[in-house]
């Protein structure tokens, strides 16, 4: 729900950047309800299975992401499990849309997976930095490390790592300049090309969930979690706003250039950050 609200607000922000008024903030809810009530054309039962698997994978991921220090059960927010589960969502989507038989869909999935190959390396490097500092792979503990005011947040302590992480998250959310996966004018919105009706509605919910947990990871890593759910959501929205602002003014990379860029610039930033931290 919060994710959908975020997308709706994000559309307004994009519109304002382009000097438009933009849709109402509840537009995403209208779209999703309309899509769920629509005729759905499906080609194979794998499509349904893939959609549900993708949504299930993302929800399973979200269960492990601590929201303002709160978790459904005491798992401590294991970061490697989160990364592992996040891929299941993508694989489910890959399975579902490949069954649709449209050549654009595997093309989009191929781009998504190669981009994933790109952004997981710098992201893992960031995690190594934090894990070596805190001695724990738990998101809750990383967030708890940063309690005690603005100055103890990781964004202030490790600004270079934050810039690198911001670029990585931009790729994770498939916002420009890393939206090769959906590229409407090139490959006709890629994985979503054959999805109509319910499948597209589920796809939008997936997108919302993905945005929610990706921003949540960012808030936990760099903004010190949150005292309660409201400040946490506010911080999440801040992260999303940065992403949307970059998105609304950027063109799109070619896929090979994107991967090359992610492998060089953010990785270099993190290594510099690591050298600063460890040599000091």
């Amino acid at each position, binding site marked *: 729900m919060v994710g959908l609200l975020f997308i709706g607000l994000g559309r307004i922000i994009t519109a304002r950047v382009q000097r438009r008024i*933009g849709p109402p903030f509840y*537009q995403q809810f*209208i779209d999703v309800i*309309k899509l769920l009530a629509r005729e759905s*054309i499906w080609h194979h039962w794998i499509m349904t299975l893939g959609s549900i698997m993708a949504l299930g994978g993302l929800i399973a991921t979200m269960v492990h992401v601590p929201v303002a220090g709160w978790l459904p059960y005491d798992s401590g927010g294991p970061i490697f499990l989160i990364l592992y589960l996040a891929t299941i969502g993508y694989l489910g989507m890959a399975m579902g849309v490949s069954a649709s038989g449209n050549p654009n869909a595997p093309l989009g999935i191929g781009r998504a997976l190669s981009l994933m190959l790109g952004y997981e390396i710098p992201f893992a490097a960031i995690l190594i930095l934090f894990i070596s500092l805190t001695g724990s792979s738990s998101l809750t503990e990383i967030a708890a490390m940063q309690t005690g005011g603005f100055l103890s947040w990781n964004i202030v302590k490790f600004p270079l790592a934050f810039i690198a992480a911001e670029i990585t998250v931009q790729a994770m959310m498939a916002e420009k300049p890393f939206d090769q996966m959906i590229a409407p004018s090139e490959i*006709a919105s890629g994985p*979503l090309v054959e999805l*109509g009706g319910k499948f597209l509605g589920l796809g939008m919910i997936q997108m919302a969930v993905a945005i929610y947990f990706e921003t949540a990871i960012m808030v936990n890593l760099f903004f010190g979690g949150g005292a309660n759910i409201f400040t946490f959501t506010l911080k999440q929205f801040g992260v999303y706003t940065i992403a949307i602002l970059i998105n609304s003014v950027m063109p799109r990379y070619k896929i090979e250039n994107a991967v090359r860029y992610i492998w060089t610039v953010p990785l270099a930033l993190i290594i510099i950050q690591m050298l600063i931290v460890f040599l000091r």
Partner: protein
Amino acid sequence: MLNEIEQNRKERQSAWEYVINYFRKRSIWLLHYCTGCGAVELPPVMTSRWDLERFGVGPMATPRQADVFLVTGYASIKTLKRMIRTYEQMPKPRWVIGFGACTINGGIYYKSYNVINKLDRYIPVDIFISGCMPRPEAILAALEELRNMIQRGEAKGYDRYVKNYDWYKKNQKEILEREGSLFGEADDENK
């Protein structure tokens, strides 16, 4: 008076459809497919001057995702073939807007050997916009009217297509798969 309107509404659609139609009319997605020169009017409508996204209207890349098929301008025979395929790929409910004079009667392409004249003989059109070119205000007005029609349950072009499928297919075949010349022997002798 009010009771009559209520009565008419109930004859056309159930309460559930009425609620769903509210969401449908607030989220109309256009198919990003442009047949003719009319497409040049769409960028100003989409961008900051007229800002179509205010009404939840946006462009979509594939027919599976789109609600409205906007036939922008003249449709040549080869385009017609693609248009029919595209239209049949769209999930219901789907609507067609005939855009510009060319879709109504051929417009300035009336005498052309390669451009169809009456679009509504081949696919069901819910609403026409006149003009060559229609102003962006006309497009906004047409979309507003389409929204009202959806809310009233009158925009049922997709039902007509199913009901009169034979008629539409016959007309389409007349154009696309005609056998033999249209000019008979008698015409050749006159020349």
